[in-house]
């Protein structure tokens, strides 16, 4: 293949279907879940916001898949699509866009009526709702703050998907209501300067940056690089996990 990699940037990332996903993918999400859970030791990390520097880096798929993985571990998880500009959570999960977050914020829906239960994946989902003309103001409003506080006791984790931070300030605005922010980095696409820009914006907003997730790492890079032994070991036993 001469080292030229197929550009697959715009192919939809899938939701992890635990029955069909390859073992290393599921395992990677479990490791991410464990790290998220560990970061909550000694401090409250319940409302977690996912953002990235640019579109298509994997914010939505990472937040959805992490929510699903947390749900599978028996955690009570709410996934909020707070990307009020280009919401995608509902398309990934095959749900209607409305009613959603914006309906709840303008109080024409109760949270209990707006939230959708994905019983197969064991998560609650609040989709975006009708797209508003003023997303930043809505996310930074006191209604948003009150809403998040009102539902906090019902869940172990509240995962929020947001627009890319270098294009829109929404994530920075919302970060003041989140306990922690996770930056999604797409390997081979996101540059260091972009990540530094995101970190700078979040720090200015006073956000608590939990860390980052490196997405779309090629398997051959992982196995050749640091994880040679780790995944190499698993590779030998992966037939135990393969299900066709």
């Amino acid at each position, binding site marked *: 293949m001469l*080292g030229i990699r197929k550009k697959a940037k715009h192919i*939809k990332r899938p939701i992890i279907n635990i029955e069909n996903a390859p073992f290393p*993918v599921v395992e990677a999400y479990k490791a991410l879940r464990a790290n998220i859970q560990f970061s909550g030791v000694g401090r409250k990390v319940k409302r977690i916001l996912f953002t990235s520097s640019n579109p298509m880096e994997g914010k939505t798929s990472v937040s959805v898949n992490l929510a699903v993985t947390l749900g599978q571990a028996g955690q009570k998880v709410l996934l909020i699509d707070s990307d009020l500009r280009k919401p995608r959570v509902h398309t990934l999960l095959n749900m209607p866009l409305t009613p959603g977050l914006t309906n709840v914020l303008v109080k024409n829906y109760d949270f209990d009526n707006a939230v959708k239960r994905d019983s197969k994946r064991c998560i609650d989902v609040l989709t975006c709702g009708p797209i508003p003309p003023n997303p930043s103001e809505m996310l930074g409003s006191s209604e948003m703050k009150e809403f998040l506080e009102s539902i906090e006791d019902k869940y172990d984790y509240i995962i929020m998907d947001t627009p890319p931070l270098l294009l829109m300030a929404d994530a920075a605005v919302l970060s003041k209501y989140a306990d922690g922010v996770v930056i999604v980095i797409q390997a081979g696409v996101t540059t260091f300067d972009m990540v530094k820009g995101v970190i700078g914006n979040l720090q200015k907003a006073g956000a608590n940056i939990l860390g980052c997730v490196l997405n779309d790492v090629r398997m051959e890079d992982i196995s050749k690089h640091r994880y040679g032994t780790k995944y190499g070991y698993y590779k030998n036993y992966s037939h135990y996990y393969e299900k066709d």
Partner: protein
Amino acid sequence: MEETLNLREIIRILRQNLLIILSVMVWAAVLGAVLSIYIIDPVYEASATMIVNKSSSEEGQDTTYNDILMTQKLVKTYSVIMQSNTVLNRVTDALGLDMDAKALRNMLTITGVNDTEVIKITVTNKDPELAAKVANEIVRQAPEEIIRAVKAGSVEIIDKATIPSDPVKPNTKMYTIIAGVLGLIASTFAIFLKYYFDDTVKTEDDIAEKLNLPVLGVLPFYRPEPVTAGRKGRR
């Protein structure tokens, strides 16, 4: 950029791109071979040798260092005479060539053989027969002029030029090797240039090293076949 590539990274980059580098090298070599075989016109070289005897008065003396210097100077002198318009015009007239003395001079190289008094006349041309003919005609016409001009004793022809069978240029083997080496250098350079200007985050180590950011997860690239119909058709 203050960052430098360390040795391990260089080896990693080279190993990852080994196939590209090698294939570029092979293609360049093939191109060089094709170019030298089919595109570039072959050039033939014919040479004749002759010796000039000095006048008899100096014979019998021991050879001194001065004599050697003298010999080299004389070879130069003879070569100028042989390249003179007088000699070359006679050659073109004798052979009935449709070229002037200047064109003929460009085909001509005259050298002394290893500090001896032997003079080698080399003619290069696309036509092997013509090259040999010109070389032979020069050694036929030159003596008269040399004897007249420098009052030399005599001029003897040692070897007559023969019609060369193999071209001297292009040297297919050399062209192929040079093209291959150029391809190797160019592709390696291009790959390192690409890596040098590539500012994207690639590995977990990159993040730890340059961003001081905890890495919570490393997710593998995973895109199964699109499930939704129609999406695939549009691509």
